[in-house]
């Protein structure tokens, strides 16, 4: 570092910037390879996907996506020839493998379950979290620190340890394998994150706004509704996305407490199998569809990411 540099004495030199940039770009490229590989595999045919050496260049095919959304049965070529022209691209693709489409697979219902449970629990967690965060932020709550620690500590429990009694409780209440049961459970897990994050966001809104509103004749409830909530929109949106990502990605509870009607996508995707083993293009297709929303959210959230992953402990 030269002391005669033009702007600041502590600015990194051009060389050190270049070296740092090169290493970071290399790391980023290597760390993104597994994800690119998932994406590439989803467009391979099953033989291409298990070729040695692994194929980087290949003829793209939508077979993986066809297999993901359908169940197929093997038929004799004579039978397939007797069927008449194929009705769609997928139909044509699977016929080349001497198969016919027998019906839709379970992927769509599982994906819809994921959507319902993730959005349902996010809504509940953010609703409850906003109210509690406002309560903790603005009022003198007895034992507030203990309550907040209690709320946080529920998130620290190992999921399997929680799942044992929940499994028994849900069996008694008839909530096993229901969307409602999963929404309740995910709400309970997410509400701790929501309270902690939102308390931070609401703490940053000056009290004077509500006080002014109350002097103008609003009740506290109206002041909360008309001044605090609009100010907290960004924080609420960021919190909601974090809750959504958790519920969307969650596997342990879903794998142990759902098996059929309420099963979400994470425990379902690994069970996609083809003839003679895992159908990797179909798994990759399911994984790609499953990951894309999270990629979009990550990019939207990048400014709030730090806050979200540390429960609001570190703010930039």
């Amino acid at each position, binding site marked *: *570092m030269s002391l005669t540099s033009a702007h600041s004495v*502590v600015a*990194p030199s051009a060389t*050190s*910037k270049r070296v*740092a940039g090169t*290493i*970071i*770009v290399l*790391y*980023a490229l290597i*760390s993104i390879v597994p994800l690119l*590989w998932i994406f590439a595999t989803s467009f391979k045919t099953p033989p291409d996907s*298990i070729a*040695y*050496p692994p194929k980087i260049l290949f003829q793209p095919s939508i077979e993986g996506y066809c297999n993901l959304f359908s169940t197929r049965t093997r038929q004799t070529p004579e039978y397939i020839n007797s069927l008449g022209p194929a009705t769609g691209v997928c139909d044509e693709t699977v016929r080349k493998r001497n198969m016919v489409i027998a019906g839709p697979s379970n992927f769509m219902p599982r994906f819809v379950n994921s959507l319902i449970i993730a959005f349902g629990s996010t809504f509940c967690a953010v609703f*409850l979290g906003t*109210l*509690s965060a406002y309560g903790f932020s603005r*009022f003198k*709550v007895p034992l507030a620190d203990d*309550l907040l620690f209690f*709320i946080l500590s*529920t998130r*620290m*429990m*190992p999921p399997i*340890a929680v799942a*044992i*009694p929940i*499994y*028994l*409780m849900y*069996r008694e209440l008839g909530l096993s394998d229901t969307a409602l049961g999963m929404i309740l459970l995910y*709400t*309970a897990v997410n*509400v*701790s994150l929501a309270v902690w994050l939102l308390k931070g966001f609401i703490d940053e809104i000056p009290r004077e706004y509500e*006080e002014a509103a*109350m*002097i103008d*004749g609003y009740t*506290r*409830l109206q002041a909360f509704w008309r001044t605090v909530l609009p100010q907290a929109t960004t924080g609420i949106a960021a919190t909601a996305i974090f809750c959504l*990502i958790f519920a969307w*990605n969650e*596997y*342990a509870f879903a*794998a*142990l407490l759902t098996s059929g009607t309420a099963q979400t996508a*994470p425990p379902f995707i690994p069970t996609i199998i083809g003839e003679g083993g*895992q159908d990797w293009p179909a798994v*990759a297709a399911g994984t790609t569809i*499953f*990951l894309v929303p*999270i990629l979009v959210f*990550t990019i939207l959230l990048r400014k709030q990411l730090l806050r979200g992953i*540390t429960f609001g402990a*570190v703010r*930039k």
Partner: protein
Amino acid sequence: MLNRTADSVARATPESLARKVRGISDKGLAWLFISPTILLLLAINIFPLFWAIYLSFTNYRANRPNEVVKNVGLANYRRILGDQDIWIAMQTTAHFVFWTILLQTLIGFTLAWLIDRKFRGHAFWTTIILVPMMLSPAVVGNFWRFLYEPQIGLFAYAISFVSGIPATQIGMLSNVSLAPWSIVIVDTWMWTPYVMLICLAGLRSIPEYIYEAAEVDRASNWRQFWSITLPMALPFIMLAVLFRGIENFKMFDMVNLLTGGGPGSTTEVASITLKRQAFESWRTGYSSAFAIILFVAVFGLANIYVKALNKVKQR
């Protein structure tokens, strides 16, 4: 202060409005706002916890609900502490937690330190690096099984390309001595960005004037790093370490899909043992006792975590 404001508001407003202001007292509103959350957590977290504590003193088996439940006292706890398998699982967990944290902290801090140079395009590349940690550990962990395949997998191919060892011999998931590292690698790939992001916040919190002063004092770059950068970023590094420690202590999803605890029980971390005992052997009472022990351990860690967190906040 709040009460005084409320009083002054009440005094300043006409009678009709004052009635509205007093509609719900602040105290009432506070409880109205907070109690639903507390009730939900009591119902979904605390009640089951007490149920688990009760079960841990019994020989209950969830797959035989009609059998008479016997109170066995502390027998489950005694058996766990004497159970060889449990100790092996704890050692596996310790190996996993130690190495993931060490690697993630070293790589994560280095990356943050490099990104802090603010080279051109650093924001874009940072976002790219952050992507893996946002994804589902289960779904991505499952796909790593494919990358680890001895011959057709990309990982094995890349390693054999670099090292010259035939790709068929790199059985990351089937080799007893490699399998524990296979989960360390995936976890490190996934969570290094997490440590990096927190370290970056730590580095950016160091005021520039300190470096300027050090520069005036002719402190070497090496000296500046050890006397300014590292100590001032340390609380953040600790925060990241504790958070990763808690998370990896509970690790279940990625390991369950990647190795399922195998081969044998070489990657059987505590949560996998717990799942096998509770949902495969159906030893509900016994596994509840193990769950309570794990919970107490995590709770202890959480306590330390919150204390450290408060220290970071005070800065």
